[in-house]
């Protein structure tokens, strides 16, 4: 079972990276959350009953873990606040404009609550409302309502930024 688990997680680890990316703004936190999610997936693996797709189950466990496990316990005054330096977006292939866009993305997402982040992540991952509802355990209607609120929230944030 362990071997099967490791293979399937290795194949789908992109999901965990994405969850970590949306919930954490520095590399240390991302590493901690990644480890936490893998440990939690392993603990819950025996209860995966194939009633849903593996990736759906994986998103659910990863997001639930991010929401409940990653209430920051470390209080480091210089790192609690979101800073540009925290975003590791340096890439040789990026131009300044792309870098700025990625920074803006992180700053916008940082305005959202833990649950809103999970909905936005699934939206960014092109999940349909039906699948977002299945992963988050809320109805499709609520997903729509929530998406509208998130849009308004982000719009307001961007307006104040400009």
């Amino acid at each position, binding site marked *: 079972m362990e071997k099967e688990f490791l293979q399937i997680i290795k194949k789908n680890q992109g999901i965990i990276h994405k969850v970590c*990316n949306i919930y954490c703004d520095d590399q240390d936190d991302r590493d901690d959350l990644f480890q*936490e999610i893998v440990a*939690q997936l392993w603990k819950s693996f025996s*209860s995966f009953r194939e009633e849903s797709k593996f990736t759906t189950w994986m998103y659910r466990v990863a997001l639930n873990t991010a929401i409940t496990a990653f209430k920051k316990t470390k209080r480091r005054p210089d790192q609690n606040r979101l800073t540009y330096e925290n975003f590791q977006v340096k890439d040789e292939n990026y131009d300044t404009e*792309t870098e700025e866009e*990625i920074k803006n*993305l992180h700053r916008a997402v940082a305005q959202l609550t833990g649950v809103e982040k999970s909905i936005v992540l699934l939206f960014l991952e092109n999940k349909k409302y039906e699948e977002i509802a299945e992963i988050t*355990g809320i109805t499709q209607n609520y997903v729509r309502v929530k998406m509208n609120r998130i849009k308004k929230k982000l719009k307001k944030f*961007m307006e104040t930024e400009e």
Partner: protein
Amino acid sequence: MDLENLKKTWDKLPTEKQLDESQLMKMIEHRTKSLIEKIDRNIKIGFGVLFVLIVIFALDDLILSPILMKEFGEDIHIPGWIIIISVFSNFLIITTFIYFVIKYYRVKKGCDMNCNLKETLIKIIDTLKIYRTMFYLALITFLFAIGTSFLTGMYKGFLEGVQEKGMVLTEVQGDKIALVVLIGLAILVFLTGLVFFFLSWGFKKLYGNYIYKLKLTLLELQEIQD
């Protein structure tokens, strides 16, 4: 920047370093830090504390009390009702904890991280709340038991002291009785206060604080359905 723009930017994010199976293997042995996992750990600590309490009660009943009774005279008779209250309060503390553990693991068995998080949180918070109520009821019973034992012991001791002097209680001066009552009450309040503070602090540390933290997470989840 609207959501569509965010989506375009999201697709440009760099690909993270891919971990191999040996690196993932190390992670599955990692101790998790989630609130629910911490409660699991604290239940094990709770069992440890309970075991220590049982050992202390047993040592008191089987060793310390008989030694003290020999020391102060073998004719000391402990009223039956005090023994009943004492046994009942100990029984209540133990059964309350065991009831909580059974209820908690039933909730956890039925639902975990891979379930609807909101429902799991509601059930765990309810279980913790019930345990909190039961714990304080058991604690009050326990304090009542040690309080009455202490007062009865003090009364008996005072009475024997008076009888040794060849007097009866009605012959003792009122201010002396008042002084004894005051000192007795002061010691009683201090002792029960200390026990209450210590056990209450222990409970909050192990479980009580998690009710608040879990409620915060639940509030965040419920905000979706406002």
